[in-house]
């Protein structure tokens, strides 16, 4: 019985994946129509999954508040914010309160996280040089430093005082970095294809057994 269900899920997932994949290569009306239907189902299921995900968030944080686990005050704030946003969000995306929440809470918080990212990266750069004293890390840090030098605006003198820093930056970015990035992208693309095929062949079953 267990094996039967296991096989059924694998066959359904494999067949659905195969139809979507073939729809990109074969210009058959039936296959393209089936691909579109399956894609629409996927979007619908994904929307329901979002609802389940929100319930999951509420449940996890409710348990934390109920059991007074460490960090429960944060969970309380999260639950209140979620409920308030959902209630006022139901009135429409142009609702004044929702616009205010977006402009004065959501946007500033995300911007401050971006600012935090800049600081974190600067610290990580110093840590990289201090802790990983191998040649790839030195090349990485040195390249990043040269690109920074070529990007910033010098207040009192031209960036061509010693060497053409912006030209050096362009060469680093457009020649060396682009070449390296293409090699990395090639590896990522091959890895993504193989990962997808493993799901299609039911070797990897993220949908469970």
């Amino acid at each position: 019985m267990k094996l039967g269900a296991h096989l059924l899920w694998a066959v359904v997932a494999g067949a659905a994946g195969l139809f979507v994949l073939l729809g990109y290569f074969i210009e058959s009306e039936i296959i393209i129509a089936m691909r579109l239907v399956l894609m629409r189902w996927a979007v619908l299921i994904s929307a329901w999954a979002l609802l389940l995900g929100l319930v999951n968030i509420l449940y996890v944080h409710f348990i934390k508040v109920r059991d007074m686990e460490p960090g429960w005050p944060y969970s309380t704030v999260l639950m209140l914010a979620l409920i308030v946003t959902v209630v006022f969000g139901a009135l429409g995306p142009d609702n004044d309160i929702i616009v205010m929440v977006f402009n004065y809470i959501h946007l500033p918080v995300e911007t401050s996280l971006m600012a935090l990212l800049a600081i974190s990266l600067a610290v990580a750069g110093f840590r990289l040089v201090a802790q990983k004293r191998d040649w790839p890390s030195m090349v990485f840090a040195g390249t990043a430093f040269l690109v920074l030098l070529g990007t910033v605006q010098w207040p009192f003198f031209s960036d061509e005082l010693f060497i053409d820093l912006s030209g050096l930056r362009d060469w680093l970015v457009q020649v060396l970095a682009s070449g390296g990035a293409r090699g990395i992208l090639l590896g990522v693309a091959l890895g993504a294809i193989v990962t997808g095929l493993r799901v299609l062949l039911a070797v990897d079953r993220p949908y469970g057994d």
Partner: protein
Amino acid sequence: MSLVDLVGMLVLAFFIGGIIVYATVGRRWPAVFRPLRGYSDLEDAIERAVEAGDRVHVSLGTGSVIGSDCAPALAGLTMVSRIAEITSVSDRPVVVTAGDAAMALLAQDTLRSTYDRINASEAYSPNSGRMLGPTPFSYIASLPVLIDTEKVSVHVLAGSFGYEGALAVDFGNRQGAFSLAGTDNVQSQALIYATADEPLIGEELFAGGAYLNQHPVHRASLRVQDLMRMIIIGAILAGTILRVLGTFS
């Protein structure tokens, strides 16, 4: 069907055929992969976490199941399955988070089926697979509390991340957790290289199943991947030489 479509289908057929062939003959001619320090260090770090009663956290990133950025998270789910097996004996089994709700559901299914397979159903909890926040920054903003309260000492990031991926790694570093991170975005990989203890560059993220001994087919697929890369590199070199010869003739 156009020539490009035909070539595409032939390439896919080559991949599938190659995986089947290597999976069949793999035992007779076992592959020797180059050592990847990230994965060997990960196994050591997980063993230490299990012994110390700490938690392993796997982040599947902020990509969605129906988007083109789901492949790294699917590779991450393969790692989740193996990590769940190892940590099932711990008081604190692995916790998996995602920015996409459907991905969180897949994580729950992966954990449940893994624990069922190894007769450790009691290790499963619906809270082991969670959605933290539906947008990239809401997801990242939820991470510090999770890492702190769940006593995370191994922080694995295997999924699609934008620039916020560097922050996700940094939050783990601040708690003193061992961090292994990989993503599909090239710019984010550069940021992760600077922040993670062990960064996974390019295809290394997708090799997790093969390196963590998940299934013989994972090793077979990695061999096909390497073979295909050699063919592409050969084609690029041949094209470059022919182009140069054509220019000068």
